[in-house]
């Protein structure tokens, strides 16, 4: 082998690497010629929609909790959903997370994952996190341990028997602790936290899972004004990174979240009654009737 040949080889290799890098930079990790690779269990967000509900109906003993509900949440969107009691807000979340099976309709996550085929734990694994109405944390474990269990990791029994936290994972727990303002309470038993702190802890547990979509059912119920405000700040910092669906009664909080321009959906009797900015929705005659009429 001559030096010239070796130099030529190096040149060609570098040129090839440059070309590959260009291709990768041009179109994400895909090139137009080869189409997109859909991997099982990885949602495809190329169309910009994170969650589709199409014509979903759920009835309990003849009562239609959801009545041909259709809804689409964009990637990175923060959507507030309001509606009077019994409008179907919680049933909708139950359907998305697999707790309730709809009678008819389609539910998909990204464009490729059919949520109706998955069990609760699987739905959580592919990136949909849910916060319950009532704060549910592991009362007798410490705040730190609560977050540790939520950490994205192998969920199988054998893996959990021998699992050790890596430095990176510790950093991640630390980062979330800071974000939910519980850094100083890390070693406290979760059952001893205040109501608002428990709500935050639960949100922190959701964040640990690195979900693509967060479903939050009345996240500020029972919080003080100051806590509510800090929660709004937290959610606003999350949008863009995650898609968020917030179900809430507190109009002041909804106002803080939408900042005047984000979309609000009003549910009533299991279907979408109105959609638009908070001002538009509040001016809608039908919405006023539903909330104040009767």
């Amino acid at each position: 082998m001559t030096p010239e040949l070796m130099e030529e080889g190096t040149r060609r290799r570098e040129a090839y690497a440059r070309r590959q890098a260009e291709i990768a930079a041009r179109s994400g990790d895909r090139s137009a010629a080869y189409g997109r690779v859909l991997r099982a269990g990885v949602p495809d967000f190329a169309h910009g929609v994170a969650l589709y509900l199409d014509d979903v109906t759920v009835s309990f003993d003849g009562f239609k909790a959801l009545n041909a509900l259709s809804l689409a949440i964009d990637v990175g969107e923060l959507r507030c959903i309001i509606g009077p009691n019994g409008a179907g807000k919680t049933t909708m979340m139950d359907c998305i997370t697999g707790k309730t099976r709809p009678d008819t309709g389609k539910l998909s996550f990204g464009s490729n994952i059919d949520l109706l085929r998955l069990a609760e734990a699987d739905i959580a694994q592919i990136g949909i996190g849910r916060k319950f109405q009532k704060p549910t944390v592991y009362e007798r474990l410490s705040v730190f341990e609560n977050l540790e269990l939520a950490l994205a990791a192998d969920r199988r029994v054998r893996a959990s028997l021998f699992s050790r936290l890596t430095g990176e994972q510790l950093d991640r727990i630390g980062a979330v602790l800071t974000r939910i303002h519980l850094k100083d309470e890390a070693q406290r038993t979760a059952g001893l936290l205040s109501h608002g702190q428990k709500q935050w802890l639960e949100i922190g547990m959701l964040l640990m899972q690195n979900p693509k979509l967060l479903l939050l059912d009345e996240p500020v119920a029972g919080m003080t004004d100051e806590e509510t405000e800090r929660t709004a700040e937290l959610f606003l910092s999350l949008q863009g990174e995650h898609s968020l669906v917030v179900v809430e009664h507190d109009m002041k909080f909804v106002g803080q979240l939408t900042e005047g321009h984000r979309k609000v959906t009003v549910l009533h009797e299991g279907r979408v009654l109105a959609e638009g900015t908070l001002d538009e929705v509040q001016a809608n005659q039908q919405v006023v009737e539903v909330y104040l009429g009767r």
Partner: protein
Amino acid sequence: MSTALFTLRQWIGVLAALIVVGVGLPVLNLVAPEGSLLHVPDFYVSLIGKILCYAICALAIDLIWGYAGILSLGHGLFFALGGYGMGMYLMRQIGREGQYRSDLPDFMVFLNWKAFPWHWAWSDSFIAQMLLVVGVPGLLAFVFGYFAFRSRIKGVYFSIITQALTFAAMLLFFRNETGFGGNNGFTDFKRILGIPITTPQMRVALAVISGLTLIGLFVMARAIVASKFGRVLQAIRDAESRVMFTGYDPIAYKLAIWTLSAVMCALAGALYVPQVGIINPGEMSPAASIEMAIWAAVGGRGTLVGPIVGAFFVNGAKSFFTAAFPEFWLYFLGAMFIAVTLFLPNGLIGLLRKKTP
């Protein structure tokens, strides 16, 4: 970490106590001469040996009840199955020394059977029979647990079903046709591994083996609850739906600890039978299973040490009361349970522990 069970010193203390009771006391029976202050009478050796087996059961109950929040009122079934597994082997060891001088156990001759039924096929091999001792209760627990947990049967409903299961098994074992000696069960054991079973040396050896088994299982249980697996179990106990929506499959976790707990009980049963010299369907009675839960509750759930203390305390008291005031024992047991529920929600061990903030 807040849930760290013991400090190093407590840990050493507990192990030391277990070794003294589980190994030291029985050995003193042989080593120290009779009449000496250190001599442990034979009666106490058998009592300690028995209670060590009970303590294993209490530990098994604590793993599922204290940590995973699943109350079983049917662990007596697994205990008895382990006992029957050992009993079958011990019956074969009698050989031709039974009343009828036959190869078959006396109860089979009495029923006019000519050959061993199919499920006695392995009973003359110690190793095969020990595999059955672990395997049969383990498999039963696995299958039962799989269907119960998959159907999301929880709380008191689960407890009632376990109770019904052990009761049904008791009725089955009462029948002579089942091939387990009917209501008399197995007794009159002569040898184990060819060694006479009624000698003082064997009595001490069996008690020591029980003690060592308890220590081994205790160390294992402690490792389990200190692992992430143990924390997932506690999470299931506190908020199962949250565990599910975090992406864990609670069925797999519950099934794993449930089966392990059943196998622990079966081991205890297998150690118990050669020491007391009898096994009959009475061990499957609902009351026997409920008593196991009482040991755990009296000692203190979710502490591992508590249930062991509880097993010693309740059975020690039982041994004393049934001798001193036989007619009052059940009243005392009831009163003790009420007192613990009202005044010591954390059990006896809660008395020692300082309240954690």
